[in-house]
C-alpha cells in the first residue's frame, strides 16, 4: 500500500502510528527553530563577552551584527506563519486550568495523576505564547536597534531603555527555550521524532495527549 505524500494531522497509520504534525507544521517549526537559534547565538555573543565566540556562527562578529537583524525578521515572519497554523489550537480550554493545577505531577513524571490534555497541553501553550509575545517585543525593539543612526539625537536616550528590554525579552525566551529543548530531546522520548517526521505511536498520543487521541480515534471510525 502506498502512503500519500502529505498526511493530514490525526491520521492513524496501519503501523500503530499517528500523524501528529503535518509537513507544513513541521517545516514551519524548523524554520522558526533555525532562525531563532541563529539569533540566540549571535545575540548571546553581544550579550556577554564570555559568549562572544558564538558570533562566529555568523562568519565574523561584524557579519553576525549585520545578519542578526535580518534573520530576526525571518524568525518573526516564521512566527506569524506558525500563528496562522496554531493560534486556534493554542487558545486556552477549560481543561488547561486543571492541568496547570496538577503540573507538579507532570514534572515528577507521575503522569497517571494528571488530567488529560488536548493536542497541546497547557505547558506547550504557555511556551507558545511566551515565544509569540516575546517575538513581537524583540521585533519592535530590534528595528530601533538596527538603525540607531536614524534616531533623532534628542531621542537617543530611548535606546538606553530599548536595549535592555530587547535583552530581557530574549533572556525570557532563552529560559523557555532551554526547557523546550530539554523536554523535546531528553524528557519526553518520542517528542523529537514527532516534530521531525510527524509521527508518534498511538501509545504516545494516548499517554501525552489523551483528549486529542480520543478525538482522532473517534473521527477515524
Amino acid at each position: 500500500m502506498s502512503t500519500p505524500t502529505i498526511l493530514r494531522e490525526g491520521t492513524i497509520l496501519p503501523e500503530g502510528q499517528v500523524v501528529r504534525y503535518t509537513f507544513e507544521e513541521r517545516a514551519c517549526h524548523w524554520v522558526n527553530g533555525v532562525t531563532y537559534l541563529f539569533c540566540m547565538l549571535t545575540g548571546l555573543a553581544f550579550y556577554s563577552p564570555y559568549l562572544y565566540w558564538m558570533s562566529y556562527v555568523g562568519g565574523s562578529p561584524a557579519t553576525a551584527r549585520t545578519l542578526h537583524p535580518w534573520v530576526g525578521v525571518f524568525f518573526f515572519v516564521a512566527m506569524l506563519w506558525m500563528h496562522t497554523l496554531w493560534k486556534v489550537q493554542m487558545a486556552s480550554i477549560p481543561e488547561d486550568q486543571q492541568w496547570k493545577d496538577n503540573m507538579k505531577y507532570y514534572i515528577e513524571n507521575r503522569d497517571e495523576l494528571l488530567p488529560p490534555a488536548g493536542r497541546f497541553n497547557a505547558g506547550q501553550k504557555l511556551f507558545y505564547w511566551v515565544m509569540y509575545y516575546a517575538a513581537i517585543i524583540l521585533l519592535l525593539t530590534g528595528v530601533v536597534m538596527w538603525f540607531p543612526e536614524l534616531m533623532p539625537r534628542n531621542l537617543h536616550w530611548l535606546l538606553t531603555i530599548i536595549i535592555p528590554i530587547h535583552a530581557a525579552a530574549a533572556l525570557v525566551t532563552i529560559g523557555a527555550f532551554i526547557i523546550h529543548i530539554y523536554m523535546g530531546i531528553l524528557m519526553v522520548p518520542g517528542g523529537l521524532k514527532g516534530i521531525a517526521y510527524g509521527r508518534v505511536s498511538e501509545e504516545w498520543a494516548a499517554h501525552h495527549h489523551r483528549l486529542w487521541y480520543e478525538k482522532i480515534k473517534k473521527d477515524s471510525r
Partner: protein
Amino acid sequence: MPNEAMQVKAISAHPGPVPGGNVSRDYDVCKLIDTTTCIGCKACEVACLEWNGYEFRETTFDNTYQTMPDTAWNYWNLIRFNEVESEEHGLQWLMRKDQCMHCAEPGCLEACPADGAIVQYKNGIVDFNQENCIGCQYCVTGCPFNIPKFNPETKKVFKCTLCSDRVGAGLEPACIKACPTGCLHFGSKEDMKDLAERRVAQLHKETSYNKAGVYDPEGVGGTHVIYVLHDAENPEKYGGLPKNPRIPLMVSFWKHPLKWLGNVGLVFGIAGVLLHYVRFGPKVIDKKEEKKP
C-alpha cells in the same frame, strides 16, 4: 611623554644616592582647552583633518561662525560657537573646542559589546579599534558627550584619538601643535590641572569673570581633556557641555545587574533541567496500560 625608559638610573660623579632615581612622571596625558583665549580660528579643525587624513568638507552656514552643526565620523574636532548675552558681561562669543573628552570612566567602553573595539590606554587615551568594531553603536548610547559617530558606508564608529599615534611617538596632538593663541596645552594631567587652576585664579583676580572655573567632571571619573570656562557654573551655554555628565543609568543597569541576573538565570536554567533529568529521568510509557481509551 616620559616613561620608565627615561627614569634616571645613574649620574656621573655624584656622591650618595642618585637624586630622582626610579622616579618617573605620571603617565596620564591631558589636553587643556582655555576657552577664554580661544579666538575660534579653527586651525585645530584643519590640523585634525590634515593629520588624520580626511578631506575638508563643505561648511554649513547657520548665522554663526560654526563650521557645521555637529562633529562627524570624519570630522572629530569642532569649534562650537555660541552667542550669549548677560547683564554682567554684555554680548559674549563663547567658543568651545568640542571633541572626545577621554573620560577616565568611559561610557563608550562600558557599553561596547565587541571584544577589543575600544581600548583605554594607561595614559588615559580612549581609542577606537575599527577592525574590531561591529557597528552596533552601543558606544553612542553610552557616551554622555555625543562623541562617537557612525560611518554608514563602512559600518564602523569613529572619534578623536587624542592623536594616540603622535602621543605614542612623544609628540603633542595635532590640534595643540596648530593652535596660534596658546589656548591649547598638553602635558600630564597634574600639570594641566595646575595650569588651569592658575589661569582660573588669574581670571578671578584680574577680570570680572568671578565664576570662572575648571571643567573636569567627576561623574565620569574626570576627563583627559579639561576646560577653563569663564562661567563654570553654566557649562551648557558652551554648546551643550553637560553640567554633570554620567554614564546613562540604564547602560550601567543593563551592563551590571541585568547581565548578572541573566547569567545566573541561564546557569540555573541549564542546571535545573539537568538536575531534573538526574532526579526524575525521561517519561516512560507503559505500552500495555495505554492504547485503548
